[in-house]
């Protein structure tokens, strides 16, 4: 189930397929440079191909340890690229190489084994071109967003990267800030969202924001106000379809019994949760509960036919916002019934 991303077309020093993500021209940064250097020096070897080293050829039978050798080789090549700085990020700081080799593998066990995520309606997400994925937000920490992104990367036929719009707090916190950018997120502002959609990217937005993330457990699966509907404006301006996504399961991972508002304000956080295990069990309390998850992508709501002038009409904005919110709320109710028990 490893995603088949665009790979560099060249061969590595060992004569194997290069594993770097491909940039323009189907080559990675390293091989593109070699190609340019080879072009500059006409007597240079075949472009993009290393002269094979005088190493003994691969042992054809590595036996039971063969997969381990392959894994170590890939890991070493990744480390080599990182040590030498030979990778490329886009203008938002998205680092597909890091996502593929480090971040996604860290999240996959949670996705597959801990929460046993099931996806529905992936066919509603286009294979290419812009779309705005709008979802419900819950669970104290934004794991729901990460799981939706991983569902699209791993299970969507086109292995799409979801470029999410995150709160400004994410870009203020050390460690979190660079990770947020490297995994493809950017600040939730109209400029960034428009730019991503115009570039044909799949953009994810969680309009409930902190109101959804930090709501008490007794209000679970009741969608909060959808901000001021800024996401609808962006969709109308760019003509991108809106794909509502309903996540069931995220509400139970950290059931929030109380919110220590004073402490939160002191620390500069939007809320400070008290769950049955946190902070009572200390760091152990940070382990999320293994609820059963269902993620459903609903049929897209087209916006292109309304035209960009529709942004000027507040009624259109309100109606579209409500339509998206109702679609998600209904799908959440439907899937809650379908799921049955919380821990499935």
């Amino acid at each position: 189930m490893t995603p088949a991303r665009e790979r560099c077309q060249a061969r590595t020093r060992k004569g194997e397929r290069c594993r770097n993500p491909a940039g323009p021209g189907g080559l990675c940064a390293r091989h593109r440079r070699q190609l340019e250097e080879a072009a500059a020096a006409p007597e240079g070897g075949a472009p993009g191909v290393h002269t094979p080293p005088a190493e003994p050829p691969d042992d054809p039978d590595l036996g039971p340890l063969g997969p381990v050798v392959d894994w170590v080789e890939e890991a070493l090549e990744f480390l080599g690229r990182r040590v030498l700085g030979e990778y490329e990020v886009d203008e938002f700081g998205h680092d597909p190489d890091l996502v593929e080799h480090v971040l996604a593998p860290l999240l996959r066990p949670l996705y597959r084994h801990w929460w046993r995520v099931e996806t529905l309606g992936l066919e509603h997400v286009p294979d290419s071109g812009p779309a705005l994925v709008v979802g419900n937000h819950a669970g104290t920490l934004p794991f729901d967003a990460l799981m939706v992104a991983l569902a699209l990367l791993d299970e969507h036929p086109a292995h799409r990267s979801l470029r999410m719009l995150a709160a400004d707090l994410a870009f203020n916190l050390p460690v979190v800030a660079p990770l947020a950018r490297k995994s493809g997120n950017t600040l939730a502002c109209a400029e960034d969202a428009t730019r991503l959609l115009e570039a044909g990217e799949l953009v994810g937005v969680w309009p409930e924001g902190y109101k959804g993330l930090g709501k008490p457990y007794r209000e679970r699966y009741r969608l909060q106000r959808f901000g001021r509907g800024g996401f609808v404006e962006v969709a109308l301006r760019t003509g991108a379809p809106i794909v509502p996504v309903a996540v069931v399961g995220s509400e139970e991972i950290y059931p929030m019994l109380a919110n220590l508002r004073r402490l939160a304000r002191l620390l500069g956080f939007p809320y400070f949760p008290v769950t049955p295990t946190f902070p009572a069990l200390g760091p152990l309390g940070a382990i999320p509960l293994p609820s059963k998850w269902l993620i459903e992508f609903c049929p897209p709501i087209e916006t292109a036919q309304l035209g960009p002038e529709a942004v000027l009409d507040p009624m259109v904005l309100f109606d579209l916002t409500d339509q998206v919110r109702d679609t998600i709320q209904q799908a959440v109710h439907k899937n809650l019934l379908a799921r049955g028990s919380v821990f499935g």
Partner: protein
Amino acid sequence: MGRRVLVTGAARTTGRRLVGALAEEPEVERVVAVDDLEPGEPFPDKVEHLAVDLRSPALVRTVQSAGIDTCVHLGVTAEPRAAGGRVTMKERNVLGTMQLLAAAYHAPDLRRLVLKSTTAVYGSAAGDPAVWTESMSHDTPRHGFGKDAIEVEDYVRSFHRRRPDVAVTVLRLANQVGPTVDNPLTRYFELPVCPTVLGFDPRLQFLHEEDTAEVLLRTILGPAPAGTFNVAGDGVVLLSQAIRIAGKPPLPIPEPLVNRVAEVVGRTVDFSPEQVRFLQYGRVADTSAAADQLGFIPKWSSLHAFEDFAATRLRKLVTEEQVTRAEHEVLGLLRRTAAWVARELPR
């Protein structure tokens, strides 16, 4: 009649290079190089060196009398120490510009004004949009080079209102790198270790010195579209990536200690507080307007420009060969072990 060009800040790297290139252009009849510093190597014959400060009355006479048709203002500096302190730097940057523009206002033949500005006008903050376009409104940097650059840009724009017959082009350049560039950022990468803000990895853009000279030359001699343009190499480089390409060990500093360390390091590299913020939050500018209207597409991407700087100026701690050899050795050992296990296990 050929072109007569006046260049301020002409003795610094960029200026020296531009003046040299202008002197080689057949359509340029005369170049006046203004700088109170002596250039590293003497200017070519066609060039007159006017060794005065921008605030000097001699400059006024030259601008107005010599039939100057193009004024290129490169004299805005980002280096407080080299300028003789922050107060002097501000005075030179802002008052120098005011004087120059005052002189230019009465220059009868002036048709074109080119200002070398900086993307530092956008500042650096966590809440910034990912990519700045020229028209986006930005919180004004409250101090330092960015603030000087904004004030200078404002004066230049107001000059444009008073002299609408002069085409005014403002080029906001990203951080320059290259084999001969010497600025606070290149000195930072030349330190034995590169201090970073712990837990932050900003996106940076670089502009190769060849492209700087090229874009200035094109703006001076080309069809001169008036306006403001971001200029930077394509793509972005992360600070962590740049440090690895530079082959230096990073030294992450926790945020509360950053200012104290910056003070110490700042003495060597001439760093100002806004450059520290730049190394925390970074900055990326959209260059499509320069491509569409100015027709300028940089030859060097941000990554290639930085790699060229690193290859010509820095000695790597870890080389590609070492990494390849280590990869080979570990894999060879592992392969042999695996093959041995495969052979011996069935017995």
